[in-house]
């Protein structure tokens, strides 16, 4: 997959492939018709995919904005009719202390902690892997893949089981060591602890991607660069920061962007936890809140407004990253 895709098609006239087909055995018809058919062919090939994307990703995106300006509750769901109420949903949303106190801090705070932990741990693992013998490396990478492959839903239940308040292995160990009384302690009621488990769960599933990707990058860094820095007396940290990091900047940008996108929209990992899917609970993030408002409290207009806010937040974050990423010419 190393071919630079942009150059593959070569510099033919626009709309015309480099080779115009079998010489002398072209289809009948005037040259212009053939040319037009050639120009239409890529669009014909693209049409089904673009139609599906437009109908099921772009149209809903437009509709969610439309819905967010409407009063849309259970009866509207039945009748299909709804009233335009202007920015009322947004006014309610932004004046709701729940947004500022709970949903927004949960979403952003969690994403920051999870992304930083995932990228840092993934990079450390990649640096370690790069120093291992090839055979050991393959074995360790395969084991890490197992964590990556674990579906979010199963992963969440396993972490819940590990930290189960009554019978979980952590609770039992703490009780055995005398740190915890036999009555136990409902730590899932504590927001920090709740999100600590979510972070653990998300980092467990997310760091393998970072490790494998950064490792692939590390193996391309010329050895001479490192050795030269070593001869100049640079320590391990300086060698990483001044040699490895600049070379791998695009790789780090990509893994950070993707981790950010994934961590902003965690759903199952929060929703399935105790109290994670209950309206008014301290634990909701924006993604779960939009779901609970619409399908729990049947206020689809309000749910749409929250969804729009989440989308805008995510687009803003990725726009910042993309600008940093595409500013560099060699990345195009």
């Amino acid at each position, binding site marked *: 997959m190393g071919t630079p895709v942009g150059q593959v098609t070569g510099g033919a006239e626009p709309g015309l492939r480099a080779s115009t087909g079998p010489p002398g055995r072209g289809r009948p018809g005037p040259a212009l018709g053939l040319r037009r058919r050639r120009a239409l062919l890529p669009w014909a090939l693209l049409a089904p995919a673009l139609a599906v994307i437009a109908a099921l990703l772009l149209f809903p995106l437009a509709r969610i904005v439309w819905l967010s300006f409407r009063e849309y509750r259970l009866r509207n769901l039945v009748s299909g009719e709804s009233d335009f109420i202007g920015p009322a949903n947004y006014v309610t949303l932004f004046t709701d202390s729940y947004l500022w106190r709970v949903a927004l801090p949960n979403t952003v705070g969690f994403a920051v902690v999870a992304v930083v932990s995932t990228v840092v741990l993934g990079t450390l693992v990649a640096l370690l892997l790069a120093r291992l013998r090839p055979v050991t490396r393959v074995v360790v990478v395969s084991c890490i893949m197992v964590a990556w492959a674990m579906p979010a839903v199963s992963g969440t239940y396993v972490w819940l089981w590990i930290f189960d308040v009554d*019978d979980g292995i952590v609770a039992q160990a703490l009780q055995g060591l005398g740190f915890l009384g036999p009555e136990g302690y409902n730590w899932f009621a504590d927001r920090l602890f709740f999100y600590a488990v979510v972070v653990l769960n998300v980092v467990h599933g997310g760091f393998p991607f970072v490790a494998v990707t950064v490792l692939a990058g590390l193996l391309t860094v010329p050895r001479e660069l490192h050795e030269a820095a070593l*001869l100049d007396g640079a320590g391990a940290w300086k060698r990483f920061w001044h040699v490895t990091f600049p070379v791998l900047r695009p790789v780090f940008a990509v893994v950070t962007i993707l981790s950010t996108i994934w961590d902003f929209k965690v759903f199952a990992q929060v929703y399935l936890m105790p109290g994670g899917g209950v309206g008014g609970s301290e634990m909701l993030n924006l993604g779960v809140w939009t779901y609970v408002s619409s399908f729990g409290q049947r206020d689809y207009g309000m749910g749409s407004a929250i969804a729009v806010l989440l989308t805008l937040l995510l687009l803003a974050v990725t726009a910042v990253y993309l600008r940093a990423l595409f500013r560099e010419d060699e990345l195009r």
Partner: protein
Amino acid sequence: MSAPADTAAAADWESRVRRARRRGGAVRLTRLAGRAAGVTAILLFTLFPVYFMLTSAFSDRMTSTVGTLLPSQPTLDNFVHVLTEGDFGTYMLNSLAVACITVAGACVLSLLAAVAVARFRFRFRTSVLMLILIVQMVPLEALVIPLFLQVRDLQLLNTVLGLGIVYIALSLPLAVWMMRGFVAAVPKEVEEAAYIDGASWPVMFWKVLFPLVAPGLVATAIFSFIIAWNEFVLALTFMQQSDKYTVAVGLRQFFGEYANEWGHVMAASTLITLPVMVFFVIVQRWLASGLVQGAVKG
């Protein structure tokens, strides 16, 4: 540049590097011990949850919690319960049906689209690629409400078809980016040779291009299978009858059914995880590079 001088310079460089390593770095033994400790820590962190899931699934209900760490008498009771009394077999069949629709749709549509963007130059080609890249960023949670309304209006709630069609859309952006790489990697000369031999475009497509991009199709198939198999929030919204649940949603049935039968939950989790792990081992190489290419190359 004569070879001997080159070798001598290289040898000199090597020895200087070795000396610098010795000077700056720790003793060889401590460094080895450090690496071993690091590897152990990573393996513990990654594998312990998986190990604990498996042993809990295979341990019998009577043993103590800590006893599940090393089940003395492995049993299949939990699996039997989950599959017979627990309807998990139905959920797995539902998930399989949804996944088949997703895989078929995603493979065909992404292959056609990938040929278009990798083999043709046309106006708005870059715009199309950027659009496909950007729609990936839209959070799924934000689309749940309108997608629910759309699927309901089409009378497709509680059907595998409704869920499958939406999953095709979800997997398409990345599938197109992945397939594009595979199609572009097929040398243009292969196609030109076929043209010279008088092959028409459809013949060229099926007889020449198709076999060469088959590995890409396998990767795309597995990738879209995993999306369909794992997806949670849309399945939760669309499948409202318990006999239509997919595995990700059906797993909740075992949670809090009685006072947390963790053996059942872990057996069901194991059944969900195993197919994904098998496929993942096959596909991970393409998945990682596809993600990175998709994000880096405009």
